[in-house]
């Protein structure tokens, strides 16, 4: 029904078609390798495990990035300290668990603690310079530097892992191919779904969520409508930071905690939001899935000898989205 937008449409469709083609080829390649059609013997169990790795990693990315996109979407604050908050949350959870606190309690406490840290950060450093995007980004960068540097002497430079709660620290057996997969990672997957659904429900069906959606669209207008924007911003930052801390404890159990993990999770949050689109929960989901799967699958399924180039595929994903749709797949101007 849209007449005459031929040139624009063609360009868009070409880019979209190219993206689709690349996706199809990539999927076909991976499946071919997995099922032994190309290059060597079939290894379906490996494929399943790697895919599960990708999904569970995506789950972790989603939890962390949803906090990032919430803060970015509403406040235009690129919270460069998000990775540091992740790591700090993990370390706090670690200390609590080491002191024999119940795992789930530790999880909640650590998440809340980071929520408070985030809230304090926002109230002290970011409340008075709203709208100055660059300045706020620089402030959060400075905070991330200080946090990162202070965590090293406090928690050490060695990689450590949080012990999963009893009953969840072994593996689940699938009937299929007799695969065993770490239970905890599946728990993280489940938690991500739970969190995603809760956030979605909160944003779509509550008054608070409506204010957030309005704020993402037009901050000035929302403020003009007399909504207590300051309170909304504060709560949003609290929740965003809380999610980072939550992710930190889960990630610390699932993977490990070490200096450098903050950079890693800042990167993943950035990529998820760039790919998925600013302020969009659906975008965060999509971005996380894309990133998690690309990262894991490329590590295994790239032609032999090239697997150490797997990071380039992540980059390719990023560049691709930027070329086709600069505002992100689910982004809105």
């Amino acid at each position, binding site marked *: 029904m849209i007449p005459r937008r031929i040139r624009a449409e063609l360009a868009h469709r070409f880019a979209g078609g190219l993206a689709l083609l690349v996706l199809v080829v990539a999927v076909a390649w991976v499946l071919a390798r997995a099922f032994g059609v190309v290059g060597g013997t079939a290894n379906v169990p490996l494929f399943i495990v790697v895919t599960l790795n990708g999904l569970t990693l995506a789950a972790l990315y989603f939890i962390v990035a949803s906090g990032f996109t919430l803060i970015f979407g509403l406040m235009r604050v690129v919270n460069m300290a998000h990775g540091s908050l992740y790591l700090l949350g993990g370390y706090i959870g670690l200390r609590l668990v080491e002191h024999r606190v119940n795992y789930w309690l530790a999880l909640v406490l650590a998440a809340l603690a980071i929520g408070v840290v985030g809230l304090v950060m926002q109230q002290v450093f970011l409340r008075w310079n709203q709208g100055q995007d660059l300045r706020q980004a620089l402030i959060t960068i*400075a905070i991330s530097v200080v946090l990162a540097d202070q965590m090293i002497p406090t928690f050490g430079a060695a990689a450590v892992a949080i012990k999963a709660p009893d009953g969840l620290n072994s593996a689940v057996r699938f009937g299929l191919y007799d695969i065993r997969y770490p239970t905890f990672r599946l728990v993280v997957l489940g938690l991500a779904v739970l969190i995603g659904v809760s956030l979605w429900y909160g944003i779509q069906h509550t008054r608070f969520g409506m204010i957030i959606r309005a704020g993402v669209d037009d901050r000035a207008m929302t403020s003009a409508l007399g909504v207590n924007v300051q309170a909304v911003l504060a709560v949003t930052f609290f929740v965003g930071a809380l999610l980072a801390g939550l992710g930190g404890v889960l990630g610390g159990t699932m993977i490990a905690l070490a200096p450098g993990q903050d950079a890693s999770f*800042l990167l993943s949050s950035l*990529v998820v939001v*760039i790919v998925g689109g600013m302020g969009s929960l659906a975008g965060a989901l999509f971005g996380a899935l894309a990133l998690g799967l690309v990262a894991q699958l490329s590590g295994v399924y790239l032609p032999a000898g090239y697997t*150490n180039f797997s*990071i*380039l595929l992540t980059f390719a994903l*990023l560049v691709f989205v930027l070329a086709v749709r600069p505002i992100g797949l689910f982004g809105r101007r």
Partner: protein
Amino acid sequence: MKLTRVSSWLLVKRVAIAGILVVVLLVPQLFSTFFASSIGVQSLVLGIAAASIIFLNAVVGMVSLAQTALYGVAAYTTAKLAVDLGVDPWLAALVAVGVTVVVALLFGAVASRSEGIYFLMITLASAVITYYFFSQVTAFGSHEGINGVTPPALLGKPFVDPTGMYYGALISSVLIYLLVRYLRRTPFGYALQGVRDESIRMRALGFNVPLLRTAAFAVGAFIAAIGGVLLVWYNSSISPGTIDLTRTIDLLTIAVIGGLGRLEGAWLGALLFTVIQTYSPRYTDRFETLIGLVFLAVVLTSPGGIAGIAGSLDRWVQRRLAGRTA
């Protein structure tokens, strides 16, 4: 009366600046080898890298965190060519700068349609990805990096006698400074400044804004690449640790402390940073915390950095002197 006071001040200012420049020119003669090398060369080289950030921000309005990654590309290319392929250092440097500019053009082509904070995020993500690339790919030595890079004979051995390296870095810095100042007054420079201030107007006037941003990014990459080549020659090695997130932020810190809006700030910030970095270990282990706090203080109180403060001070003095009429 009024004119004399102000013009005396200007004279004093000019003499002071001249004096500083003379000192800068004679650092290898006036100071110890250690100082000339650690403070002198490092400040100049980091200053060049920071100048690429300040150029992009002050002239084009683009805040790029990819400059560290770009100088890493130049450094690694130089190292790889020189060490693994035995290429002549000057030729390796030339190729390295060329490769870096090409990478920047390709990257700029996709990134140039993003503005402001988006652009910042994209460049940061790319910088971290570049770090991972160099730390994972075996051809570049993974975590060890590449060692044994010798600078050209003309520049000498940096740790034995930094004189050659110092003057090489000094001449490069001066040329880059002059280049940017010249560019500002060319059609290209005007176009960039227009894009910085009113990109929508520029588009309506017929300018291709993404193309201009890409070209500017390439110029920034050129500057960063020179810094990278000098860096790898100075250190005789390059490893991923030189371009990790911490170093990326360090370079941004230098630019901000020096003054994001003034090109001179690049070297001022680099000097301050290098001095703190060299002498702070006597007092504390936690250099990054210290520099992070300085960074935070500057951003909170005086976003113009050292150069900004100097400029404000100068104007204040001139106003006070001009105000003292009979």
